């Protein structure tokens, strides 16, 4: 927190959220410079952000941190989808090895004051033994054995280790709920963009969303404030999957839980979307996180509730279903509006009944 303003290093700027966060951070007062790091150049406009092409899996990152006099590192490079990184192995390497290298580099940077890590509520898992609302002190009921959830759990473990070794650095871990928004590409958003949604028969999970703007806001807030700790970040309230799908007006195909795995792999091989085991668990059991600490300790208030964030996401999507709704709307037009009806309704032929 030097007087000239802070120098912030942001990892993972080749992805859309990382790039936009770096840009919005550069415009913040009190931030002198933002250095964006990624193995790939960002696709869009990065504005005032200076981009350094470096792989965080490589010790070169330590030199970047020292050379640029970085005092704040925002680690956003823990990715949920392999995407451009390649397969699952490349993703795991980027997540775990990349984080280890980054933390090792941070440890050697004496100027470093703040580390903000974007984790995910995925690390809580989703099972039938889950409490309704996870607080930050709770862990997953079953330790994740594979996939993104395991990566996230391991990364958080390393970050906690780093916090022990460098007590002078303020470490903040944000666990955002499923981020949703028009620009977000994640397993869950691509699931909701399917024209017909496969669901798990007989389950109606609770979901929580965080609007992409709120994610950026929370990260900016975490950089600006001086509160350390682990915080869940989610919009208010929950939506059940059936509610979300009805608001989307998209038809669903309920499939028994044993069949949906096959559909998932078919969708994966056709590159439509990736119904990963974590996503399937979420679509079966759902998850809720408690955000009391976010409000009271971190002092961040999301602008969108879960329902509003979802409505904002759903608005530009074309409607592929909703026939029942239209039929009902037509029938309702023929009837008086129950909201504004005179107290005594003239009933035609009411005398018949006396």
């Amino acid at each position, binding site marked *: 927190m030097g007087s000239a303003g802070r120098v912030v290093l942001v990892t993972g700027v080749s992805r859309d959220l990382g790039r936009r966060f770096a840009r919005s951070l550069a415009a913040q007062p009190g931030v002198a410079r933002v250095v964006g790091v990624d193995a790939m150049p960002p696709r869009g406009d990065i504005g005032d952000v200076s981009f350094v092409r470096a792989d965080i899996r490589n010790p070169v990152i330590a030199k970047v941190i020292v050379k640029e006099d970085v005092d704040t590192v925002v680690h956003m490079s823990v990715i949920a989808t392999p995407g451009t990184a390649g397969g699952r192995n490349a993703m795991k390497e980027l997540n775990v090895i990349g984080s280890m290298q980054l933390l090792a580099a941070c440890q050697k940077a004496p100027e470093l004051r703040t580390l903000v890590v974007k984790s995910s509520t995925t690390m809580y898992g989703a099972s039938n033994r889950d409490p309704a609302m996870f607080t930050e002190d709770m862990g997953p009921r079953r330790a994740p054995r594979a996939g993104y959830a395991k990566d996230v759990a391991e990364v958080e473990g390393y970050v906690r280790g780093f916090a022990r070794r460098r007590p002078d650095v303020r470490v903040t871990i944000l666990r955002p709920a499923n981020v949703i928004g028009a620009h977000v590409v994640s397993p869950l958003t691509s699931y909701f963009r399917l024209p017909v949604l496969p669901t798990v028969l*007989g389950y109606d999970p*609770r979901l929580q969303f965080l609007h992409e703007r709120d994610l950026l806001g929370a990260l900016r807030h975490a950089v600006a404030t001086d509160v350390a700790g682990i915080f869940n970040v989610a919009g208010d309230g929950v939506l059940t999957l059936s509610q979300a799908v009805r608001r989307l007006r998209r038809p669903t195909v309920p499939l028994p839980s044993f069949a949906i795995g096959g559909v998932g792999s078919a969708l994966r091989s056709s590159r439509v979307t990736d119904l990963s085991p974590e996503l399937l668990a979420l679509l079966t059991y759902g998850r809720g996180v408690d955000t009391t600490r976010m409000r009271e300790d971190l002092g961040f208030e999301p602008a969108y509730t879960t329902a509003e964030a979802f409505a904002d996401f759903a608005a530009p999507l074309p409607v592929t279903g909703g026939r029942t*709704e239209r039929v009902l709307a037509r029938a309702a037009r023929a009837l008086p509006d*129950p909201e504004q009806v005179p107290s005594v309704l003239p009933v035609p032929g009411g005398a018949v009944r006396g």
Partner: protein
Amino acid sequence: MGDAEIIPIGTRGRPGRGTGTQQPSSAARGLAGSGRSGGSRPGGARSGGPGRQGTEKAPGGGGARPPAGDADPAPTAGDRPPVVTADREPRGGIPASDWLAALQHGAREVFGDEWELQLARFLAFLRRRVTGDYEVDEYGFDREVTERFLMASLRPIADKWFRVEVRGAENIPADGGALVVSNHSGTIPVDGLMTMVSIHDTTGRFLRPLGADLVFRLPVVGAVARKSGATLACNEDAERMLRGGELVGVWPEGFKGIGKPYSQRYKLQRFGRGGFVSAAVRAGVPIVPLSVVGAEEIYPLVGNVPSLARLLGLPYIPITPFFPLLGPLGLVPLPSKWLLEFGEPIRTDEFDEGAADDPMLVFNVTDQVRETVQQTLYTLLMQRQSVFR
């Protein structure tokens, strides 16, 4: 058809139907009414003409309306216009206005005199459901669907089938958090559902049950449980709900209570580690003991198939005197008479700070609750005249 000619079956006597002659059959001749003028008109030519099929059709078609045939030929008997479908009464029969009237009448029967308004309200409700425009709380509790469907469908069962009688409802706090602790029995957790309905109907509050993780593993059951307000029986959820001022219901016996054999009826099983007590003590809410009599007899459990249960991952596979034997009919619960007695609340807000972590105190309170429930059960059993009355 009073004047219809009687035609002997078979082909004896006069040429009857379908004898292959060039003439129309006798039935057709009889129906034509006034003699043999058939040849001149097209209808007659058709019926008299080519074949058996035609001759058979003609009487069939004409026979349906002999009065019309008799009345029509008045002007000139020889030149009767052919009877076409349009001349008859419309076959569809019921005009649209009649349909509308019938619908209105039906709607009035169902919704009463303000049927339009009621129907509009119902449609608005349906639209709200279909568009997902309703609220659920953080546990997934859907108040609207619980009130409108679950409670409405369970209420007749509670009132008419089990004739649930509630005693001591004044012991349930009107507001604020409270923990209702009940005995558990009946092979299937019907007692939980009936308690929910009874509490809602007597106090207007919703009981939020704590369910085993098995409930939430099962499809449909888990989803319905969440919608009706249940959540997982764990300390975190219990405490959270109690602090939120909810009326929480817990059945500490769990599967040991619900799946005990009939011979051990009304014998309370172990109350676990007393986790419910520590949750109540932490939240500082009263514990209301509830004793349910009658639930034990609905499905008398006489046997179990442990190996199959283990295979399916269930705690037990019930065998009742009727269940696998009568098939689905065996699933109908016996109509026992139910008594629900709520005991005096046990206050927990007087304990010190760390009382919830004091195992001695927790066990003491647990035992106190257990004893209260057990004693009330015995008293109620003494008062009961018979199982079904």
